[in-house]
């Protein structure tokens, strides 16, 4: 499902003394099946932008196109439910949305709301429990008895359960330990590839953006200021710095090595693995 943002503007609490402008003329185009990372400093409008992608906020100006539905300020609330069926959001700290008596019921909440038959929803819940690496017997436990990491996984399962074709992730790994973080990111990547999802990742981690995304959108003070492939975006360190963003560790290291060796290492190394092999190749070349 293609998503296009045309000159989207948004103000919170319009018409009150608390009015606060969060977005100005934001533009973006997200192809179906792509993996897009949205990066930006705190308060850059990333989260506001994300709420527009499934109609939780309606733009006060401009239009958001999701598939063949267009959302503007005038769109009625009733038309939005179908969009939400197709666009799943994993919010920051999604474990706060758990409420049911059992894990199984909580995962089934979304599917049942969207009219998926109960048996199918139950089956889907059990598949997801396995897929997310949770123990089988968790299904009948209360979600409030689980550990933080498990709660996070159950909450993520609750979004995956209705099989959205677009998956929006708002810092899905915040507050997890490094291992859990990696596992969850790898899982989303696997789902993205296997299920042909359109994935949108809002993140503070330049490393995650570099590793997983094939398109990067940079937000700054409510505007969409840069977009392109990771190579294009992270190749322009000067401009990123002006938006108060840094480089992924591997790219920063690559720059240091290049200074040390006095010659470029070739292509931008977006992951540690790429970096390691680029350095190895350069060293080998030097020996000969």
């Amino acid at each position, binding site marked *: 499902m293609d998503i296009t943002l045309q000159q989207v503007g948004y103000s919170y609490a319009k*018409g009150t003394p608390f009015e606060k402008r969060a977005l100005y003329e934001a533009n973006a185009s997200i192809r179906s099946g792509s993996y897009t990372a949205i990066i930006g400093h705190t308060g850059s409008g990333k989260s506001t932008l994300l709420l527009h992608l499934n109609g*939780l906020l309606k733009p006060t100006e401009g239009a958001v196109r999701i598939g063949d539905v267009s959302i503007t300020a005038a769109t009625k609330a009733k038309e939005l439910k179908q969009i*939400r*069926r197709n666009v799943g959001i994993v*919010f920051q700290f999604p474990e706060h*949305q*758990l*409420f049911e008596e059992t894990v199984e019921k909580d995962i089934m909440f979304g599917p049942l709301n969207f009219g998926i038959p109960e048996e199918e929803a139950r089956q889907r819940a059990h598949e997801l429990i396995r897929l997310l690496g949770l123990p089988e017997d968790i299904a009948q436990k209360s979600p*409030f008895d689980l550990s933080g990491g498990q709660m996070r996984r159950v909450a993520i399962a609750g979004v995956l359960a209705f099989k959205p074709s677009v998956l929006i992730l708002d810092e899905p790994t915040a507050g997890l330990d490094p291992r859990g973080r990696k596992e969850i990111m790898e899982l989303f990547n696997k789902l993205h590839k296997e299920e042909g999802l359109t994935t949108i990742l809002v993140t503070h981690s330049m490393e995650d953006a570099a590793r997983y995304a094939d398109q990067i959108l940079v937000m700054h003070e409510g505007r969409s200021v840069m977009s392109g492939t990771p190579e294009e975006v992270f190749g322009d360190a000067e401009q990123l710095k002006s938006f108060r963003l840094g480089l992924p560790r591997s790219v920063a290291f690559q720059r240091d090595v290049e200074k040390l060796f006095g010659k470029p290492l070739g292509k931008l190394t977006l992951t540690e693995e790429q970096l390691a092999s680029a350095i190895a190749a350069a060293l080998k070349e030097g020996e000969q």
Partner: protein
Amino acid sequence: MLEKMIFGRYVPGDSFVHRLDPRSKLLFVFLFIVAVFLANNTATYALLLAFTLLVIFIARIRLYFLFNGLKPILFLIIFTLLMHFIFTKEGALLIDWKFIKIYEEGVRQGIYISIRFLVLVLMTTILTLTTSPISITDGMETLLNPLKRIKLPVHELALMMSISLRFIPTLMDETDKILKAQLARGSDLTSGTIKERIRAVVPLLVPLFVSAFKRAEDLAIAMEVRGYRGGEGRTRYRQLDWQWRDTLIIIIFIILVAALIWLRGGR
């Protein structure tokens, strides 16, 4: 989604009303609420309404903002008005159209009660809009201080109040977040039968309660590790200061009551 709600919110400012001492403001609003019940005819209700509008003007609150924020309550007022129109059957018959019969007394009572309600809501909203929660509790604590003699835990009550006020916006934000998460999972609060709608509130309330309890626990621990042990010997950063304008509004209040008694119809 809840961002328009202004009930209990504070908007910083620098008007005459903003600069009043919280004690005089609290006292005034409390006495005003009692005085509202003195009104019983057109002149007195008009006086109350005019006085309230004057206060809004002096406090430099935009009318549009005020009424927009009070929409849910205005709805209740209109409902009360209609109930009076329909059910009070006294005085001359004004409208007789098919099954709808509206009597003079119904219209009068409806308007009176609505004004009373409106004035009460407006005055208390002006109080919270122009006074920071900390000032309100400080003022409350000082005003209630004499009651310590009869073993009333005044400091603890004030603390409870300031904590509740402090957490209203936090809980509102939290509600908004959870609401968005559940909406994204296809929960629907705006359509369906009443039973379905009530059921749709559960996914909102359970997480809200869970997080409120967790917050309370965290707060209690945070207070304890910083050595909090009640009001004994505790001093304040901001001292309250009673000035000429505070005396002035008490005098204005006395004049207002005198006017109400003078204008009020005898019974």
